[in-house]
């Protein structure tokens, strides 16, 4: 990647700006018609507004759906600085994301690191183009935080693998084209008996069953594998060497959370909710002083979190190795989003507890469901308890209980 100076970066910014002016479909400035326009890509991607697909295709052609990946696999080949410019220009025009993708966020980075050249050629371009939508086959029923206790069997049948077992919490498994999946290839060992395989969700023997959550939506599935045949060249890394890849992928998942926290700024802002529903006093202060103090605390925590993400990034970039601050980000992000959504519901009062019906604004119902959804933030991708254990042991050097 080229090391651009300030002037080169400004030139690049102008190029990006011009390109966006010419290529961002104006119809996308309107709110989404429906969920179908969420740009997850894949075989089933069929947005009501076709411009969502056009926008994906145009960005993919530039490689800007995976801006920093090498161009030989379809990526944008941008430097970190160029990528920041691209992101800031996209923000400037409030562009919708061209592609949301577990392939880009999680799988791609580990393929770049662990996959064979053939595998990279085979899978990465499809991710960049948003042709293949991936899901993650990690958790299993009853395993909870003990990921390495997984039981899904993968047997070597000579010319192919045969997979039997069950996954759970598979995000959008019912929508995905392919899965990256942890399987047990040695039952005699725990961590050293795990492998990392890829296969088509259209394979015979794959069944998915959506899980309804307390929030009312079903973003996850139970996924069943019965005698699923998988070509042996779809093993990534070494046989029984999948745990290292699994952990690395979790790091990318957490970094992804680091970047934006959970939930981000979506939905009703808690201050607006409080001003509208609680009112303000003669000095413009939220009339409920108790709620106001708690919102103030939350807003400060939010600022502290964003500053910590930025600092960890800067420290990482300054090559001092990963900042110790990164270890606390997942925990802090979960708590922050839970606080934010709970405060928003509280500020809305009973108006924030509507489940359905035209007496409640979609944004109000959304606030409730976000609050309920956010309860999972401290469970998914490593519970807060596990995160605190990790900080205590790996960062602070405290020992395991004997």
């Amino acid at each position, binding site marked *: 990647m080229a090391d651009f100076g300030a002037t080169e970066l400004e030139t690049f910014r102008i190029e990006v700006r011009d390109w966006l002016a010419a290529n961002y479909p104006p119809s996308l400035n309107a709110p989404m018609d429906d969920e179908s326009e969420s740009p997850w890509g894949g075989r089933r991607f069929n947005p009501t507004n076709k411009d969502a697909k056009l926008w994906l295709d145009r960005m993919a052609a530039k490689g800007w759906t995976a801006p920093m990946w090498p161009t030989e696999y379809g990526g944008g080949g941008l430097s970190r600085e160029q990528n920041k410019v691209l992101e800031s220009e996209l923000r400037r025009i409030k562009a919708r994301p061209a592609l949301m993708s577990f392939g880009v966020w999680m799988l791609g980075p580990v393929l770049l690191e662990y996959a064979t050249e053939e595998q990279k050629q085979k899978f990465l371009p499809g991710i960049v183009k948003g042709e293949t939508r991936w899901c993650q086959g990690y*958790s299993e029923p009853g395993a*909870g*935080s*003990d990921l390495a*206790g997984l039981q899904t069997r993968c047997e070597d049948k000579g010319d192919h693998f045969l997979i039997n077992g069950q996954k*759970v*919490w598979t995000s959008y498994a019912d929508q995905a084209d392919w899965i990256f999946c942890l399987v047990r290839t040695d039952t005699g060992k725990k961590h050293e008996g795990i492998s990392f395989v890829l296969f088509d969700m259209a394979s015979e023997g794959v069944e998915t069953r959506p*899980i*309804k*959550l*307390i929030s*009312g939506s079903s973003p996850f599935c139970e996924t069943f594998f019965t005698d699923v045949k998988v070509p042996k060249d779809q093993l990534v890394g070494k046989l029984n060497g999948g745990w290292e890849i699994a952990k690395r992928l979790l790091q990318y998942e957490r970094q992804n959370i680091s970047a934006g926290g959970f939930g981000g700024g979506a939905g009703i802002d808690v201050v607006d909710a409080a001003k509208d*529903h*609680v009112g303000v006093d003669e000095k413009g202060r939220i009339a*409920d*002083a*108790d*709620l106001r103090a*708690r919102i103030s605390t939350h807003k400060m925590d939010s600022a502290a979190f964003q500053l910590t993400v930025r600092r960890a990034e800067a420290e990482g970039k300054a090559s001092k190795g990963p900042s110790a601050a990164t270890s606390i980000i997942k925990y802090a992000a979960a708590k922050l989003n*839970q606080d934010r959504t709970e405060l928003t*519901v*509280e500020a*809305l*009062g*009973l*108006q*924030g*507890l*509507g*489940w*359905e*019906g035209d*007496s409640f604004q979609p944004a109000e119902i959304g606030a*409730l469901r976000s*609050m*309920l959804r956010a*309860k*999972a933030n*401290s*469970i*998914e991708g490593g*519970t*807060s*308890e596990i995160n*605190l254990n990790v900080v205590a042991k790996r960062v602070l050097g405290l020992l395991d*209980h004997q």
Partner: protein
Amino acid sequence: MAVLNEEQTMLRDAAKSWAQEASPVSKLRALRDSGSGAPFDAAAWAEMGQMGWAGVIVPEDFGGSAFGYLSLGLILEETGRTLTASPLLSTALIGASALTLGGSDAQKAQWLPKIAEGAIVTALAVDEAAHHAPERIALKAEKSGDGYALTGKKTFVIDGDAADLLIVAARTSGKPGETAGITLFLVDPAASGVSRKHLALADSRGAAEITFSGAAGEVLGAVDKGWDVLEPVLDRARIGLSAEMLGSALQAFEITLDYLKTRTQFGQVIGTFQSLQHRAAKMFTDLETTRSCIEAALEAIDAGSTDNRAAASIAKCKASELAHLVTNEMVQMHGGIGMTDVHDAGLFLKRARVTEQLFGGAGYHRDRFATVSGF
């Protein structure tokens, strides 16, 4: 648990077995999934009426048992454990309290026996916006012939869609924010000028938005002095609701405790992890201290205490904080399974959030307690 007399012990035991056997959490789930929008199971309410629970605080002269508020609190706690949807709070506690404290002899004679036998459902219509603020009443009642005509809107009226009798707080003088000038009215929801709309809340119970357009109202208590009845009735409602919330929190805690004792992770029963043990012990501490406040408040009413403002605010504040904590911990300690709709954790959490807000949340009562305490 307060020290109970024989009568109370029998009542508590009866309530416990009925709730566990005839009205488990699965009943609420079925009610929700039926899509009927019914706020409670009418057959279950009929059973409660037959057992005399609707008349526990109704004077004997009017067909009740006059066992008192502690007794009613015991039933609410037990039905709270199983998230039983019923008009016990709105009718047996709030309706009976309002008529007993504010009704004329004729009104008592007309309504209390019906309440006591569980023959009618009553609803108290107070709030007009999303946050509890009983002194901000704007709904107007104006002289009309020899009665009053009510015009305005009430919202989040608990059991308002099922009620046979509405008790409506209206303004006859003064302006929103003033406690003087409020008058209570009895209104027939079937009368002309009353229209109701169901509000589907997260807890799958019944609440309504009610619009009054010149609806006829019969004065309950004294004109312009409604606050003198309304505030004590609200305090009883807060304390009674807190008893129900205590039951729900206790059940949520016990389900979680069972899970801690059986679920294994990394080869360990998770209840052996000290951080979870300490969190459980702190929840237990909050359960015990909250119970003390609620039972003392119920006993104080039975003992004839006339000012229960501080006691009610303590009970409701602590019950709200407890419900919030315990339901969050219930989901967290259950992990992924607690996030799924098939598990009961979500039902406890959603009911908790609604009850936290009803009749004022923790913040409302922190403020109110400070005010009534003179700081």
